[in-house]
């Protein structure tokens, strides 16, 4: 179970008031922490628990829930060959979180993409500009309230004939 995972034990001990939730599903451990301490949590995982590889940074939009966004970090430990997932809730009004570029350079592009498509602001990111969409694009396409066909077109209503 997730409670017995050594990383979870350590995080609960070190960040007792900041760990919001820990879950195990299909053998994968997910820890949810407060976004204010995300950098400290990631640093602890990297330096003390040997999760030295930042595989992925992304975000999920839970439209209609509060907090609306969940920023997701997938970490991997090359020495121990295991994974852990760290999540941090971000609200719609204060849509920002500290950038992990201070810890990993790989966070640079991954966070730019998350900013571009999901509209999460990563504070202290060295170059937070759009990466896949054009610079003058309006809106963030992966948000749930962004229509599939684009903001300026009528929704597809099926074949007319």
């Amino acid at each position, binding site marked *: 179970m997730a409670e017995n995972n050594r990383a979870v034990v350590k995080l609960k001990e070190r960040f007792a008031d900041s760990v919001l939730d820990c879950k195990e*599903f299909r053998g994968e451990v997910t820890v949810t922490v407060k976004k204010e301490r995300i950098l400290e949590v990631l640093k602890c995982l990297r330096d003390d628990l040997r999760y030295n590889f930042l595989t992925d940074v992304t975000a999920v939009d839970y439209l209609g829930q509060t907090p609306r966004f969940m920023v997701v970090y997938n970490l991997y430990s090359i020495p121990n060959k295991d994974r852990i997932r760290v999540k941090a809730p971000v609200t719609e009004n204060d849509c920002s979180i500290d950038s992990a570029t201070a810890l990993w350079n790989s966070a640079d592009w991954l966070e730019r993409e998350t900013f571009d498509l999901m509209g999460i602001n990563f504070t202290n990111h060295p170059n937070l500009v759009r990466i896949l969409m054009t610079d003058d694009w309006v809106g963030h396409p*992966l948000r749930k309230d962004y229509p599939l066909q684009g903001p300026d077109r009528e929704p597809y209503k099926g074949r007319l004939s």
Partner: protein
Amino acid sequence: MASNEIMTLNMGPQHPSTHGVLRLVVELDGEVIQKITPHIGYLHRGVEKLSEHRTFHQTLPLTDRLDYLAPMSNNLGYVLAVEKLLDIEIPERAQVVRVIMNELTRLKSHLVWIACHALDIGAMTVFIYAFREREKVMELYEMISGARMTSNYFRVGGLSKDLPVGFEQKVQEILDTFPGHLDTYEGLLTKNTIWLQRTVGNGVISAEDAIDYGITGPALRGSGVDWDLRRDNPYSGYENYDFKVPVGENCDTFDRYKVRLVEMRESLKIVDQAMKRLKPGPILADAPQVCYPPKESVYNSIEGLIHHFKIASEGFPVPEGEVYQGVEAPKGELGYYIVSDGGTRPYRMRIRPPSFVNLGAIEKMAKGSMLADLVAIIGTLDIVLGEIDR
């Protein structure tokens, strides 16, 4: 003219050595690279957004179009992630076929890499030879799936159809002839003075930096990190096969070249072992709520027809939860992070593309080297823009 003048040069998106629609803005001091600003997104099709509006079966063909040089690896990552969410067991035969096709895909992808990489550096013969031999794998693709590139052969729960007659013979032909082909490429390149001058000491990135920049796959192993998901976090039965994971020492383009060449030979070894494990049996999991019924049942019984219709129109519900599944694609770690809300469509599907993250390190690798070396560095990263832009 002032000697410290910086020249800004645009490279791409229509440039033969940028392997697609990659655009680089390079700042040069003389011929020495000072800064590179990659511009990507010319091929962005919104695959992640589209998938939220399609059922789990309908999302599968989208994944073919990510890394179009290795469609089966993309399919595999996706079906494994959905199968993990569903928690279903895949029959032995389907797993073995998946391994065979994945290793042939790796071979095919690496053949394009060696062809284009050599062509970029000036070795035209290798390009023509490798593309000729790649055709053998393409024929096999066409034979089993009907398509040369967008194969869409795997299904959630197994395979779309069983192997055709003559498959074993075709694979055996590849196994018999390819070691010789690989010898030819090595003969043309490994001791070639021009090749050595262009690749040895080019694009050096240390193991620490490679991990810091998130580089995966052969590029990471070329920097001496002994890590392969097939061996370290086995999936689809890879724990049953015996293969070596090649590792480089000098962290340069030449070592990455050697790593990929050994990988191709190892892939052939895995295919050989897998062919011996290939036994008759079911190709779909015993999960009628997920898998399409056999065609005889669809055509001959009303229940079968309704069953097919339900899955094709509504899809199948997937338990609520989230999973991440990484596979060792030819370019590196390809990951699918799927969040399900219990419905028939992915609530969120995130694709972790290896090329995207690897390309992020290009400035680190190319800074301070000559402009001409940049072409070799793009080649050694082995990027595919379909996967970077998604």
